[in-house]
């Protein structure tokens, strides 16, 4: 697997990186390279220039942010797993990061790279949508802007980002007593999710007060389930939950593949959502 030839620039500063991307010649930013390089090797992507942003310190690390956390886009999965702050504020992200790939992949792969790549079977988009994260973007022309995770993903491998933009930060709001859980079923070869569901549940005593569920792997794009309102106000009633989980994916046009036919995928989505809500509900009460 040999990619077509390309130039490589290691950006010494954010400004330099943004300048190169602003040229609009198809140059691409690279950090861990775990999504982009395979596509280049298969020649599914050809680019005249790679801009390596992996050494820009300002894009790295997990910091406190309004009782939630700010995650730099080039923070590796390994650093997410190792962050005590993240584990305290939003443990589900650290847990899921620890399940991605293997040690070598986690040492190189970055959360921002994965989100910008927008693989429809990637775990992180479901988490970001369920947790209602904000993404900060930056470009030479447009300066800084913030996009909600819930509006960021536009299609398979397609996002709201312009070609000249860099994803710089991921902002996770404080959970305020809510708890989150992620349940996924992995495709045995790739390790990507056949389906995954992330639930965020807040409760008042035994009653569900807030609930959001987001999916990955089900379709072309990670999305927020819209049918879970009926579970609110119940004590996480199993019948209501199962009905909501079924309805959440009932009308969807789901494409099957060799690993999971459409009907199986639809069924698994209901199972994943149900189990994720139940686990998050229990965690929120603990």
């Amino acid at each position: 697997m040999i990619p077509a030839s390309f130039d490589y620039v290691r950006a010494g500063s954010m400004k330099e990186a943004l300048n190169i991307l602003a040229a609009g010649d198809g140059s691409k930013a690279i950090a861990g390279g775990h999504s982009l390089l395979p596509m280049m090797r298969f020649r599914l992507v050809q680019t005249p220039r790679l801009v390596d942003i992996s050494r820009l310190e300002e894009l790295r690390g997990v910091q406190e942010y309004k009782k939630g956390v700010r995650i730099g886009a080039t923070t590796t999965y390994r650093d997410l797993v190792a962050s005590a702050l993240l584990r305290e504020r939003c443990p589900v992200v650290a847990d899921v990061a620890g399940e991605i790939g293997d040690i070598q992949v986690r040492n190189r792969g970055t959360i921002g790279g994965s989100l910008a790549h927008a693989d429809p079977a990637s775990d992180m988009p479901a988490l970001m949508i369920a947790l209602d994260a904000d993404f900060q973007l930056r470009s030479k022309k447009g300066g800084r802007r913030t996009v909600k995770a819930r509006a960021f993903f536009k299609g398979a491998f397609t996002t709201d980002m312009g070609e000249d933009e860099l994803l710089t930060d991921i902002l996770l709001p404080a959970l305020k007593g809510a708890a989150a859980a992620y349940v996924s079923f992995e495709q045995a070869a790739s390790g990507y999710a056949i389906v995954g569901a992330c639930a965020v549940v807040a409760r008042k005593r035994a009653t569900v007060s807030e609930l959001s569920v987001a999916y990955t792997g089900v379709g072309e794009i990670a999305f927020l389930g819209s049918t879970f309102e009926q579970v609110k106000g119940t004590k996480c009633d199993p019948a209501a939950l199962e009905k909501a989980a079924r309805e959440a994916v009932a009308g969807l046009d789901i494409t099957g593949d060799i690993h999971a036919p459409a009907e199986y995928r639809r069924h698994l989505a209901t199972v994943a959502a149900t189990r994720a809500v139940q686990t998050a509900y229990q965690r929120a009460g603990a």
Partner: protein
Amino acid sequence: MATLFGSGIKRREDPRLITGSATYTDDVKLPGLTYAMFVRSPYAHARLNTVNVEAARKAPGVVAVFTGRDTKDKLVPVPCAWNPPGCDLKTPPHPLLAYERVRYVGDAVAMVVAESRAEARDAVDLVEVDYQPLKAMVDPEKAAQQGAVQLHEEVPNNIAFTWTVAGGDAEAAFKSAEVRVDLRIVQQRLLPTAMEPRAAVASYNKGSGQLTLWATSQNPHIHRFLCSVMLQLPEHRIRVIAPEVGGGFGSKIPAYADEALCCFAARELGRPVKWAEDRSENYKVTIHGRDHVEYVEMCGTKAGRITGLRTRVYAGLGGYASTAAPGIPTILHGLVYSGPYTIPNIRGVIHGVYTNTTPVDAYRGAGRPEAAYLIERLMDLYARKIGMDPIELRRMNFIPRDKFPYQVATGLTYDSGNYEAALEKALSILDYKAFRIEQAKARKEGRYLGIGVVSYIEICGSGPSQVAGQIGFGGGQYDSAIVRVFPTGMVKVYVGASPHGQGEETTFAQIVADEFGYPVENVEIIHGDTDTTAQGWGTYGSRTTAVCGSAVKNAALRVREKARQIAAHLLEANEADVEWKDGKFQVKGTPGKTKSFAEVALMANVAWNMPAGVEPGLEAAAFFDPSNFVFPFGTHLCTVEVDADTGVVTILRYVAVDDCGPPINPMIVDGQIHGGVIQGLGEGLQEIAVYDDEGQLLTGTMMDYAVPKASQMPHLELGHTITPSPVNPLGVKGCGEAGTIGSAACLVSAVCDALEPLGISHIDKPLTPARVWAAIQKAKGAKP
């Protein structure tokens, strides 16, 4: 005296393998090296109109571009070298580069040679090929039907051969039987996935006319011979070197076009040529395994006595017959239909069928796992039908331990065995009764626990060369060793087999060191170079230790006998009075008068004082040709829990009791069993090569082809029984494939046992969650 035989010393090859200091084919660098890449058909079946290479020839760095028209008159088609008797095998020519038609995705139509790999890769995109696509056949059963699209005009209905195995009178047995069970089984196509893909470096010296080929080979002598055929070069001018080889699982046995084309280009260009697959190319063009559609049935009495087995098998061969392909679903499959049981009446009809897919050949176990699978699936069905415990059914039909050597209905004579002992040991490790109680409890809670059992035999240690000739194998099956002792007493052993991960550099050194009273460090094993080793037939089919290891032992004994004569001379004793005892030569009854092996080795090599008539030097060669195959066996047990809501199978425990005779190095044996079981569980649980109807391989990368990962596999609990083989001086049987033979069947047995309350008796492997869930849905839907 403690022996090295039986000692689990660490593998001597590992330090270089795990520190990156091993030399693989792709590490070989020569002055003036060029790089080859192939233009491969994107169509599974197409007429080839024109291949325009003008733009590619002019591309930067390109040295040459060859097409099928350039090579067809200069190269002999890729040979098929196994023609089982009585099956009317048709092997249409397989040109090294296609020039009229392509018959699978990946069939090569042109070869680009350039100064660098990147330039070769870029030039591949510049070759313009005009294809006229044809309808493709991918399913071996459908391809064999009347009216199916024809791959080769000279092969009606795409049937390359029809081979029959028969013993007893199966028709009569089925007619009169009290009980019959039957099944349609699909044994899916698999991708061998050796860690190192294939590679070749070819260098031709125009002055001397010598060709050297470094290649990823399991059998360099066979490759030397087949290269001489394809290239029309005298065999003694070809040297094949298999340097470090990173596994093969059978995929590095066959002769391929790619390596021969590197030789051809090196000869044409006068420059060395290198080619190395990437994984995608490996999945596309290196042989695949299995691919059977089977109709199988078993019959017997209500009391559980099995009296007959019948099969009809469609075995996919791919677009052409690969080197050993016709022998795999026939000799190595049909002849073991009796398994470990006394089945008096057997009949199998096997059709080898061409399809528009990558050629299929030997993959770990090669025919025998397919046989064990169908036998054991039928045993489970049978036990359920007559309401007998599946363990009891097996026990009842085993060949009794006192009946060996035992001739089964297919004609093979099993060398030795004690099947009950292996079964009992497995049951006691697992605590079978306790599990059945736990299972009953779990069922009351609505949980699905199950236990699988498989008892298997396999045919290994190939084999008697006379039999190889009788079964149409295009070569011998003996093997060779040269033991050479240096003046300092250090020993090098040159062996004809070609290990590539199995650890014989360690086990063979253990054999030799024992015979010379040496530590293992004094012995080095050399393999994989046709210019230094004597004729051998390679490493596959779990034959290396039983056959080549026996040659090693015999050569060492010959050396020691000569040394004994010299020792007698040095000790001034009668030859008859000198014996090898406690690791040295000594005069009988005179314990003080001794010579070490090293002392004798020095004298033999300097030859200052030799006995009359004895030649200087200390070395010997031995060729070992066994009197029979060996038949390892064992019983595996597996327990699982199935999540009925998702179809996810969790393996709870896996117990494997294998008998491969006395282990030379128990740690290496366990390692082989581990690898084998995991490969079989991969087959049972998740591995499947999928083609779409157009013949495109949908599992073309490791993102879609699910080779097992450590995190997906259970802890293995191993046990052994030891039943020596009488057919070789070591008593060993072979363990390279043992783990693979039964493990897929064992897993399927366990899952079907778990789902018995739902009325599920069989699900085709691999048991992916989607398949298991679909079977559960179907079973639930079928219930009133």
